[in-house]
């Protein structure tokens, strides 16, 4: 008996499309929408607004550090809160929300789903983030926050920060559930595109990290609210920044970069015009990078030695081991480039810049884990971890992630806004951002080596003029970064206003998000190609080319 059956040309989306297109338009369409593209854009735009604020704080702190004789430019009571805000704002109001925004908009498309899992919860998370982010900024403005002098402001900071964490945890649950449960038939876990996969890994890492950070934040609130001066179990307001700043140190800081790996891994094969080499190995390497970046065990304790893990075996081992999956991925990307024909398009330039900066950050993170390496200037055995070297590591990793995600916005702009960026100026912005990152972070490495402390308001004893000169270069780097981001935002706005339609698949993409219109309709897909590998559109294109030949 022979029964033959043609392979289905198309399969339905992984989940049933919504019944009807929502009738709301204008502001109501944004306020009341559960469409993941709208929610994703909300996260992205809000995160860019917070980048503006946190960037201004970072520039103000950098300006203050040009002269180390005291706090001259800013109000002295503002310096500490602003210093803390630039880190908290950059990480939790800009970088993670930008990641969540791009993931919310793109991941359902990549896995062939008609919607994000729990769209109402995702919408609630986005609005909670907007509200809590506003409250957090307000707390800084009334001199609250870490090192703040206004007690109510400090409490407001802690509460709003906890709400930001809860909102982001909910958003990660929606993204992870989408990847695990709403994949189109045929897309096994081995075939999940690398950006969606990296977000599943990141969601897992952050859903381990954020609850721990939230618990510590709640305890910090109780300490400050009921413990009086000094707190009753943790030092009160003075230790607030130490309680939360471990997320900016190694290894947790690497968790920010997990989705960046996915963005880079999505861009390189498309612009090399070949499939990603060893897709399964790449999945394993991203998972290993994510597992090593879970650093909840490396947070300050409440005992006599809060940093008991510092320079101990596990911390040193993780600091070095995390370079291995990154190097493996770089090897695979190089192999992909060699197998194909690379074309230097703007997303590829962003990806290349991000890889370079991330590699420097990971190597610098490994160097600071070597205990015998101390600052060059004093005999007080000051380890590199307590200097601005560690701030530079966070700077490299954070900025590499930001560059990768902004490259992702450029790459997926047809799906986000239905337009493409102007290619020439966007390439220039990638180079400007790379230059800005080097100018911002590299002098901090050297200043750390010369003894500049990581924490604010710690007196620098030696090499003051050299460190001040290095801090001036850092400020210049900050200005260059600001110009790069401003240019990119202007290009984004210009792209959104252009009439020229990019077409459904302007880059000849490999994954399912390019199988629908630009921008995608409500419900995402009318039909989908058969998924028999991790690159279904690449397969379909080559099948049709072979058929026509």
């Amino acid at each position, binding site marked *: 008996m022979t029964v033959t059956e043609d392979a289905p040309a198309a399969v339905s989306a992984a989940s049933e499309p919504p019944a009807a297109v929502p009738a709301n338009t204008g502001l109501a369409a944004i306020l009341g929408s559960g469409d993941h593209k709208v929610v994703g854009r909300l996260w992205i735009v809000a995160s860019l607004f917070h980048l503006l604020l946190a960037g201004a704080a970072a520039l103000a702190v950098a300006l203050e550090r040009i002269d180390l004789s005291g706090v001259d430019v800013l109000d002295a009571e503002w310096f500490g809160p602003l210093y803390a805000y630039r880190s908290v704002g950059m990480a939790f109001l800009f970088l993670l929300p930008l990641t969540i925004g791009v993931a919310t908009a793109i991941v359902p498309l990549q896995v062939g789903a008609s919607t994000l899992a729990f769209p109402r919860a995702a919408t609630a998370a986005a609005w909670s983030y907007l509200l809590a982010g506003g409250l957090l900024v307000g707390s800084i403005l009334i001199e609250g926050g870490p090192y703040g002098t206004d007690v109510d402001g400090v409490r407001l900071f802690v509460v709003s920060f906890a709400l930001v964490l809860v909102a982001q945890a909910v958003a990660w649950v929606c993204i992870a559930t989408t990847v695990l449960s709403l994949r189109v038939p045929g897309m096994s876990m081995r075939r999940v595109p690398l950006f969606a996969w990296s977000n599943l890994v990141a969601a897992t890492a952050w859903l381990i990290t954020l609850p721990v950070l939230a618990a510590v934040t*709640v305890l910090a609130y109780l300490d400050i609210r009921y413990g009086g001066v000094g707190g009753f179990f943790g030092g009160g307001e003075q230790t607030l920044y130490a309680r939360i700043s471990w997320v900016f140190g190694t290894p947790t800081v690497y968790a920010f970069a997990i989705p960046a790996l996915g963005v880079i891994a999505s861009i390189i094969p498309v612009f090399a015009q070949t499939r990603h080499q060893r897709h399964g190995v790449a999945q394993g390497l991203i998972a290993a990078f994510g597992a090593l970046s879970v650093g909840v065990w490396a947070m300050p304790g409440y005992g006599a030695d809060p940093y008991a893990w510092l320079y101990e075996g596990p911390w040193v081992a993780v600091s070095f081991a995390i370079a291995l999956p990154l190097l493996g991925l770089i090897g695979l990307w190089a192999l992909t480039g060699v197998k194909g024909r690379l074309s230097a398009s703007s997303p590829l330039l962003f990806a290349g810049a991000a890889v370079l900066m991330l590699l420097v950050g990971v190597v610098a993170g490994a160097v600071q884990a070597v205990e015998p390496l101390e600052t060059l200037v004093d005999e007080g055995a000051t380890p590199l971890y307590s200097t601005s070297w560690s701030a530079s590591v966070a700077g490299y990793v954070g900025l590499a992630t930001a560059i990768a995600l902004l490259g992702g916005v450029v790459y997926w702009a047809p799906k986000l806004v239905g337009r493409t960026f102007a290619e020439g100026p966007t390439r220039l912005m990638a180079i400007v951002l790379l230059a800005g990152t080097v100018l911002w972070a590299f002098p901090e490495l050297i200043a750390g080596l010369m003894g500049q402390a990581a924490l604010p308001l710690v007196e620098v004893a030696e090499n003051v003029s050299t460190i001040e000169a290095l801090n001036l270069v850092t400020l210049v780097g900050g200005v260059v970064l600001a110009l790069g981001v401003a240019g990119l935002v202007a290009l984004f706005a210009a792209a959104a206003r252009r009439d020229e339609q990019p077409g459904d698949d302007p880059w000849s993409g490999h994954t399912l998000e390019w199988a629908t219109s630009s921008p995608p309709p409500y419900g995402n897909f009318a039909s989908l190609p058969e998924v028999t590998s991790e690159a279904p559109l690449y397969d379909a294109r080559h099948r049709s080319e072979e058929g026509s030949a």
Partner: protein
Amino acid sequence: MSAVATTTPSPIVTAPPPPPRRPRVLTVAAAFGSVASGLVVLTMLGVYLQVRGERLADGVPALPEDVVLPLTPGNMGLATLAMSVVTVAWLSYSLRNEDRTHAYLALGVSILLGAAFINATAYLYQQLEMPFTMTGTSGLLYAVTGAHLVMTFAGLVFLAVMGFQALGGQLTGRDAEGMSAAALYWYVTVAVYLPVWYGIYVTK
């Protein structure tokens, strides 16, 4: 023979395709949510144990000297939650088998046991007569057990909503995923109570 074979459709081929597997979104999300909630409680417990250890190392009692932390309410709480694991499993089983009578009974008993646990903890607080701000450990004790109470309350609400949805006919026996998700959350809530019980009530 071969002609017959090619003209008579095989029952395997002509059988209707199986219904698409329902995406288990609620169960997956409940797994993530329960682990995240549990980590909040366990982090606080870790801080409590560290602060307690520091006090004991300094020769200071873990809790203020005039405070007696009775073991009985903690034990009762553990026994209550252990029983609720059985009743929640009974509830899930009854719903899967469309046994409404047993499902009603199991849901009622489960909610009763959960409420009894909350009552036992509230009674313990009353017995303790320990101000929140007395020492670091006193505040932390309330923080840890209070966080677990919040988790328990959330689990109860989740169970009740999913249970009544199923019994109201919105979820059928074949499709009672919401109940599985609520049960999963409840099991993790009970599991998290074990280290809380040992770390706070047993070791005092």
